[in-house]
């Protein structure tokens, strides 16, 4: 039971962290290296005409972040649905010598 929980915990944390990092940081670096606009919205001139659009659709990047949040939400539901694991913290005595 504990092993299964550990695996689920690791997958949930790893996958959500990967999705957050990919959506925000990795694709943010790609967008920056691709040149203007350095943000994730179209760049317009004073006349309001679009002069540059993001290389990566922000819908994809926000979608990755939302997917990461969904992973965490599913993990939370899993934790609610499964029996609580007893506190397993053990104290290992250390001698002074």
């Amino acid at each position, binding site marked *: 039971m504990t092993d299964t929980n550990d695996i689920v915990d690791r997958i949930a944390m790893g996958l959500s962290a990967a999705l957050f990092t990919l959506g925000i940081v990795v694709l943010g670096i790609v967008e920056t290296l691709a040149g203007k606009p350095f943000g994730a919205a179209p760049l317009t001139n004073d006349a309001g005409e679009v002069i540059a659009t993001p290389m990566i659709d922000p*819908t994809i990047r926000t979608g990755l972040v939302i997917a990461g949040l969904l992973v965490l939400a599913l993990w*939370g539901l899993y934790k609610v649905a499964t029996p609580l694991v007893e506190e397993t913290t053990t104290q290992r005595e*250390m001698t002074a010598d």
Partner: protein
Amino acid sequence: MSTQAANPLATEFELELDKPLTAYWLAIVRVLTGWWFFHAGITKIIENGLNFSYGPAYMQQMTGTALGPIPVWMGNNLGWLIAPGVPLFETLIGLALIAGALTRLAALGGVFFMVLFWVGNAGFGHGLVNSDLMGLMLFMTVLVLGAGRYYGLDAIIEKTKLVEQNPKLRYILG
């Protein structure tokens, strides 16, 4: 002297949540985040009562987002809930965070709101990390760390017999 053997992440650099400064700061973060939402909700109630008609209209224009057709569908079909729900739930989420009661449940509601605001406002001119995402992160931080336990009512609620007999209630407290 003893060390924690069960937690491989526990090192001498681990964040120690029982230290006074950490507890103090988590409480500050929780209360200020709560005030932010309480103020947003209560001022809507003062101005328009429980009839925030901009709410459904806002969601109806959320086309082409990562949430697909969900917000538009909600705007078209759940106006009866959104119009009173936005000011009411913003106020209640804020009050819960300020008091530190049902903190995780309230923070989850805050995350839900902030996802919609982040995607709906789409203020991405300076990148995806904007104030809406920062608000989302604040609610996630309060949720993950169970910030209601620090100078909040959840510290008392979690010691009640009801919670001791139903420990899973801690998933919505804390």
